[in-house]
């Protein structure tokens, strides 16, 4: 029984990682309709930022990680911005093409990382204060996981504020729905696009830093998370923050329990089957806005 209960924090921890990886997609994919396959590589850039903090700038791991978070946000954000301004902007209204385009870009980014940092994984030491964990009611909570969870929560709050309370958030949704109409309503669509992409990419950078705590830091880091992250956004409903959160946690728990009862391989397959089943009931994800428009 304890063992089963123990899967709950594990599932939530997995969910937090998925959530962090998916938050950026919630912008670029959910809000803008850009299927950014290079999102995984943006996470990789974030992770290498953390590496550079300690390896090149020789910062103390105890605070290198904390410094890496804003640095990675800005760096990957700018990378995304550069990408948006140079190519992606040619693609609005062709969401499926962006997938292929960014896939190509992802391959190139991987190869660049390999050429700069070498093919093997690199070591990003975790701060001492994140080592170990606490037992709560007989359930073990790791500090690293709690940190990721906290980071995810912070990001969610910031995003929720941005999306619902602020002017650019609204404009972003308007632009996604109808670019032309937005333009003749006075919205500077290009600036909105650029900002959105900057934020989505920046969030990938933050996720990348967090991932160094629990997994390998190497050129192919993104591959491990990208499919799951997209699934989270799809199950949650495109552009639905609430949905993304719930979906991430649900998939995390599902993964944890499926793995507990079967094994890690079968768990992945079961999760996929569950998602198909879920979409039978809610084809447009957990939360969607109905529109009467015919498509």
């Amino acid at each position: 029984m304890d063992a089963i209960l123990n899967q709950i924090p594990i599932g939530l921890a997995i969910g937090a990682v998925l959530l962090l990886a998916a938050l950026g997609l919630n912008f670029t994919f959910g809000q803008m309709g850009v299927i950014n396959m290079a999102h995984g590589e943006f996470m990789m850039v974030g992770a290498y930022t953390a590496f550079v903090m300690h390896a090149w700038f020789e910062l103390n791991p105890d605070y290198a990680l904390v410094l890496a978070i804003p640095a990675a946000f800005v760096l990957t954000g700018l990378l995304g911005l550069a990408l948006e301004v140079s190519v992606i902007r040619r693609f609005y209204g062709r969401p499926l093409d962006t997938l292929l385009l960014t896939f190509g870009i992802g391959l190139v980014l991987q190869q660049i990382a390999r050429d700069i940092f070498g093919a093997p994984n690199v070591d990003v030491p975790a701060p001492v204060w994140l080592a170990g964990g606490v037992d709560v009611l007989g359930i073990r909570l790791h500090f690293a996981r709690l940190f990721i969870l906290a980071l995810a929560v912070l990001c969610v709050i910031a995003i929720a504020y941005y999306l619902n309370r602020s002017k650019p958030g609204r404009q972003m949704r308007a632009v996604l729905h109808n670019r032309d109409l937005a333009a003749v309503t006075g919205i500077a669509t290009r600036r909105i696009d650029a900002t959105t992409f900057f934020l989505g990419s920046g969030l990938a950078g933050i996720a990348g830093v967090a991932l160094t705590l629990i997994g390998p830091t190497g050129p192919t880091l993104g591959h491990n998370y990208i499919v799951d992250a997209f699934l989270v956004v799809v199950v949650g409903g495109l552009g639905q923050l609430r949905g993304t959160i719930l979906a991430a946690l649900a998939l995390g728990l599902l993964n944890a329990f499926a793995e507990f009862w079967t094994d890690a391989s079968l768990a992945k397959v079961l999760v996929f089957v569950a998602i198909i089943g879920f979409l039978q009931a809610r084809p447009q994800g957990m939360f969607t806005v109905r529109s009467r428009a015919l498509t």
Partner: protein
Amino acid sequence: MLSVHGLSAGYGRARVLFGVDLDVADNSVTCVMGRNGVGKSTLLNTITGLITATSGQVTFDGTDITRRPAHARVRAGIGYVPQGHESFAPLTVAENLDVAWEAAGRGPRTLVDGALELFPRLVPLMGRHAGVLSGGQAQQLAIARALVTNPRLLILDEPTEGIQPSIVAEIEEAIATLHARGIAVLLVEQYLDVALRLADTVTVLDAGAVVHSAAREDLSTEQVQSLLAI
């Protein structure tokens, strides 16, 4: 106020407009008329920047805006209601208005109140997603949205389409009121009676070119009808 000179435009290789000239004087109502498919909407889309002109010039208040992006034109004072009651479906009615009000540079907040006064039927719908509105409700929202951008020139593409008769009359009154407040209006309208009641100048378009342009008082209804029946 607005001056269009030798404007040509089209879609890809298909040319639609061929050297259109058009002037909208300060504080006037200009009505563009023409059969379906002659290029009326294309003309308005080119003026507002949705389509880039292949040649010719659009001048607003003496500045050449031919190459300016669409949103900049809105901020310069050109409000646009495109054809086909379009709205931002995932946003609520209130958000539709807010987003426009903010984007155009936040004129006085009374703009929003004013627009709602004009379309009181939108008030109970403020929290509803625009995507579920009825055709006429959406059209009212579209006009309201253009009004909150605080335009000095309001461009309307068949604003009464899909609107119930009593509100058509109200819109007509509203346009007259705006006019009285010094806002210039460029209007495409298929209801002849409405158009002729409002217009100071009538321009008739056929096959992408202006075939007639005259002051309202120089035209009889029959003349217009025959021009439209080419």
